[in-house]
């Protein structure tokens, strides 16, 4: 996910996780889909709940609500399917959300050094200050894990 260098008007998708709202830049959203069957199989990545099938593609389901709000979602209204670059390929991740999503245009304020890694930027909307999420810091990524393991320099990863 590209960094935010300056104040910048961008299309964003607002998403609801329990009582809170967050945003993702629209360029990283593929689609919003109704919940479908989650296929679960043995694995050791705790952030991943399972996978769903979407247009013949296997999409991992990553529930970020507990990490962002401290509570697991009790109700999944939709899956917001986001994309990110992972090496040479485009990686899809399904984020369960608990309410309607909204497409808005807002000025992005870059995240500061003291902000959490999952915060890419901030937007102000309807009198509310909302975090724009950095998907790379929220959803696990084997490419980043491999980089971290191969790097001799200590590196912060979510």
């Amino acid at each position, binding site marked *: 996910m590209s960094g935010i260098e300056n104040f910048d008007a961008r299309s964003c998708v607002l998403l609801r996780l329990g009582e809170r709202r967050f945003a993702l830049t629209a360029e990283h959203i593929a689609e919003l889909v109704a919940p479908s069957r989650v*296929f679960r*199989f*043995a*694995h*050791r*990545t705790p*952030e*991943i709940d399972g*996978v769903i*099938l979407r247009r*013949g*593609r*296997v*999409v*991992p389901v*990553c529930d970020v609500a507990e990490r962002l709000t401290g509570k697991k979602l009790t109700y999944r209204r939709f899956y917001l399917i986001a994309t990110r670059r*992972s*090496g040479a*390929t485009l*990686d*899809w*991740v399904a984020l369960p959300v608990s309410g309607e999503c909204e497409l808005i245009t807002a000025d992005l304020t870059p995240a500061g050094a003291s902000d959490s890694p999952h915060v890419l930027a901030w937007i102000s909307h309807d009198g509310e200050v909302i975090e724009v999420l950095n998907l790379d810091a929220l*959803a*696990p*990524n*084997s*490419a*980043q*894990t491999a980089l971290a393991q191969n790097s001799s320099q200590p590196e912060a990863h979510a």
Partner: protein
Amino acid sequence: MQLAAAHKSPSVRTEQIILFRCSSQVFAISSAAVQEVRSVDSLAGSPQEITEPTLPKVRHMFRRGERNLYVVNAAIHFGLRPSPSALLFLLRKSRAALLIDGIEKMTTMTRLQALPAAFCHEERLWYRGLTVLDQTVVPVVSPSGFLTAEELFLLDTVAARLAVPESSPTTEVGLGL
């Protein structure tokens, strides 16, 4: 039961697979990777207990020719609830034998999707990828993922301390599982 290596059609890229059950979950393995399927009760040779506390998934081994084969309990390997195992896959070009609950069926897969990058732990060694069969996602196991080189070295070290009798075709000894 002896399984012949799967033939690949030159025109259609398909792969014959075996769907097997392990602790109520279904996995797939290429039939070309399975040399023999044995009942645990009719395994020729003398399975011997082997104990390595860091590798609870391996509790038995037996000798075939010059090599020790190590029996990997698939349920423990995948972190699933242990269940009564009935069958053993002897894997081709591998020193692991896989203890499973049973075979679901043999079928053909036409597409193997890479494991999504969001999976970033041991499962990347466990699986070659995922396939979709009848609108169901099935993980396709990697035959080389059951025992790493380090684990084999460790097991060989433990086995070297044990006297392993040569496999005898006249001896029918079960794994007692």
